[in-house]
């Protein structure tokens, strides 16, 4: 591959040397088809020219290093017809001998700590390839510009209510940054020297003397503070900082204006509160068909100035968070009420808290055939017929039951007032 008669090729000591590399065939194999084989340390000297690239190869020594055998090593200049075990992907059509890779890649010989050169790229010895790479990279940069322009145009001219708007913006942005990214990576990979650099690591451990001195200085400094000599100072300082540190509790407690108290034990249900749907309709007997369900909220009775009772439907978020109740109409005779709850239902209508006793999700899936309620969050299953007992999944408590009754007009209302146990997820203070 290398053109030994190339005019611009100012080889180091071994310039124009006709012999092939001195490596044994087996060593050569290690180079995996790398043509223009490196040679030895003599060659390495010329490698300092890497930073000057090929046009001005600099040879710091200009002569083979001591101990190197020129005839055995030297640049692999005879390899014009040499084919490595694995031919280089791009045939080295060398058009410019000044691009001879041995001036552009710093290489070590076979015995050099086991390190071997990287294969040269086409760009390393072929100016046309280099120009090609440049054009490809420039193309990608231009693609990026197209993307940016597309983004700007879509952003300002596009109709943000149209379906194409977001996909176009995303694609344009992707092209804009992606084009630049591909260009940058190609630039680094194809046009920058692709040699690897080697850097020494250094121990982090300091010397024993340093450690000793540092420790002694800190100890001296600590002694200077007098904390060991003045116990009162030490103790009061410690005490004062502990007390001051305790101050962080204050902002923490200030995080809430509402003490927990018994709040978790109560909901908005009161005695006589009507069951109202989200739309504001009071639920009457007969509104729910057998097997049907209805999510209801409390409509708290308010006695007006003239004595007549009106109902205030509470469907705000706060109330919904704990008072949401599910009203189910069971076929007659299937319900097995618990002891003491025999009269908590009316005509097959039973009301249970919709807030899951596991983690507080609304238990909203009702299976008509099995009369099971399923929580979609963690799949706890409750048996409505058996007092909404938790029969599967992570929930361990039954859903609290709301005692209901029907008034003379048939409106359902909370018979005993609030649930007799906290709704929702359990907590420490709960028995």
């Amino acid at each position, binding site marked *: 591959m290398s053109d030994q008669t190339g005019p611009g090729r100012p080889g180091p000591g071994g310039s124009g040397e006709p012999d092939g590399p001195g490596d044994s065939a087996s060593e050569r194999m290690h180079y995996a088809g790398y043509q223009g084989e490196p040679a030895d340390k003599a060659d390495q000297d010329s490698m300092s020219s890497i930073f000057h690239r090929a046009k001005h190869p600099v040879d710091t020594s200009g002569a083979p290093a001591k101990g190197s055998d020129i005839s055995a090593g030297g640049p692999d200049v005879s390899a014009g017809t040499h084919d490595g075990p694995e031919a280089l992907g791009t045939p080295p059509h060398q058009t410019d001998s000044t691009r001879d890779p041995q001036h552009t890649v710093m290489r070590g010989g076979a015995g050099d700590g086991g390190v071997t050169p990287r294969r040269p790229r086409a760009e390393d010895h072929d100016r046309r390839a280099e120009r090609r790479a440049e054009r490809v990279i420039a193309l990608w940069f231009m693609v990026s510009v197209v993307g940016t322009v597309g983004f700007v145009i879509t952003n300002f001219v596009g109709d943000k209510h149209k379906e194409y708007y977001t996909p176009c913006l995303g694609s344009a942005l992707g092209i804009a940054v992606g084009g630049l*990214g591909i260009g940058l990576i190609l630039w680094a990979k194809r046009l920058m020297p692709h040699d690897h650099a080697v850097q020494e690591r250094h121990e982090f451990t300091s010397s024993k003397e340093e450690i000793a001195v540092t420790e002694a200085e800190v100890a001296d400094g600590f002694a200077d503070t007098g904390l060991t000599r003045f116990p009162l100072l030490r103790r009061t300082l410690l005490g004062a900082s502990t007390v001051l540190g305790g101050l962080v509790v204050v902002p923490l407690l200030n995080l809430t204006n509402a003490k927990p108290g018994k709040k978790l034990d109560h909901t908005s249900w009161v005695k006589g509160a009507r069951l109202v749907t989200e739309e504001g309709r009071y639920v009457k007997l007969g509104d729910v068909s057998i097997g049907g369900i209805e999510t209801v909220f409390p409509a708290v009775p308010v006695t007006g100035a003239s004595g007549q009772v009106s109902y205030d439907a509470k469907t705000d978020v706060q109330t919904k968070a704990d008072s949401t109740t599910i009203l189910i109409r069971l076929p007659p005779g299937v319900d097995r009420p618990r002891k003491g709850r025999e009269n908590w239902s009316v005509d097959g209508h039973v009301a249970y808290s919709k807030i899951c006793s596991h983690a507080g999700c609304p238990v909203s899936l009702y299976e008509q055939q099995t009369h099971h309620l399923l929580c979609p969050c963690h799949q706890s299953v409750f048996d409505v017929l058996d007092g909404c007992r938790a029969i599967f999944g992570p929930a361990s408590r039954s859903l609290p039951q709301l005692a209901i009754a029907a008034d003379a007009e048939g409106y359902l209302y909370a018979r005993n007032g609030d649930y007799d146990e906290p709704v929702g997820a359990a907590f420490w203070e709960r028995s």
Partner: protein
Amino acid sequence: MTTAAPPDFVKRPGPVRKLNRAADERFGTQAGLRRNLNKVFPDHWSFMIGEIALYSFVILLLTGIYLTLFFDPSNTEVIYNGSYVPLKGVEMSRAYASTLDISFDTRAGLVFRQIHHWAALIFVASIIVHLMRVFFTGAYRKPREVNWLIGVGLLILGILEGFAGYSLPDDLLSGTGLRIAASIAQSIPIIGTWASFMLFNGEFPGANFLPRLYVVHILLVPGVLLALIGAHLAILWQQKHTDFPGPGKTEHNVVGHRVFPIFAVKSGGFFMMTFSMIALLGGLAQINPIWMFGPYDPSKVSSASQPDWYIGFLDGSTRLMPPWEFRGLGHTVPAVFWPTAVLPGILFTLLAIWPFLEARFTGDTKSHNLLQRPREAPTRTALGAMAISFYLVLWISGGNDVIAKTFSISLNAMTWAGRIGLLIVPPIAYAVTKKLCLNLQDKDTEIEHHGIETGIIRQLPNGEFVEDHRPKPAPVSDYPHVPNDRYALPAANGHGDSHGTGLARRAGKAVSGFFVEEKEKDAEPDSTTKH
């Protein structure tokens, strides 16, 4: 071979050089600048996973800033009157309404919202993949345990940050997630109720909770994340990156590219590529379409309500947990406490202390800069596989309702499969992986001693058949031996000691002059011996 002689001092500097000199006169930058620009980073695809995490964090910051300009984290109820017709006239919080506005009525709002969400998913995902790379190659070993700890902190904070962001729009899904979070806080023994009340400012859903969450999401957690990422990178920079063993690579060197220019340009390009991929995802792949879920309503839930993927394992553990609630002495420890607070606590603690556990068990107190292949540490690799399988069982169980529905399996069967699988799959994974590693080791030894099978069978004169083996070729490195520094500075100019001066040492030097001057290791011992 050596580096070139020092270049001449440019007497008439151009503007860039002038700037450089101005900075140097004030801060004395040259030695440090040179050292850092010449810093070598090794090359391996697996080292780029952490970069993805870093870049997606940058993208999160950029898109997040854009979103803060339009988002209104307010619990105040408003009637929606934007351009999304199906929700017109619906009462909702301003947080949800402004998220709808970002999605429908803000220029480039939806695309940046979706990029932000995708970047968050990729952020946590790349952290976990990066963690697995670090774990299985033993990169966390001394001296890098502190960076491992910081990384674990970043993972936890990343998950928290993601959850906070997911909860901000106040849609049905995020509200349901917050409800569960409140229940989890409430489940902590003794302090639970107070914890939940302090978090939400009262009983769930709390009073003005969203502004509080917003500050956590855009200031507190990102601030800590930023600081920890800075520390993570600074430590990496200081300690230098680990590398896989290879020809010429030792415990005492780094082989790769200098920061300037190749590593910087490649990394810049890689950032752009990451951004590009996430931008394409954000533009073309819909994510978290909150307008389809509706505003949060504590009485409603959609079926198959799934959290973002990184919360999935906790969702799964919650689903698999048997209903074991401890009651007694007037108190309750709810079942939800164990899988959501205790389990992650144990998991993350084990993760954090793993480097120290391993050092204790193996008695390995040496510093390591070269990575191991997973097979070289069968026990570690097997434990890692065990942990991954445990996590995966939990994660799959987090979507067991979707799987049950898709494949028409009984949900109860899925739950039981998860419960049993959680106990038996990890030990199996352990045993299989360990066996695999040991066998791979045997194979390596065999190849080393007998060579690679060629498939050529020969019959010996005595009738015996043998297969020919060819020797394994020695590994071929694909880098030349190049010094790190391009120019050698005369040692006397005071810059010669710029290498490997620990902060402590420099400080020590400043304090007192009676240190024994350590002999500087030559920066390029190999290169200087050439002459």
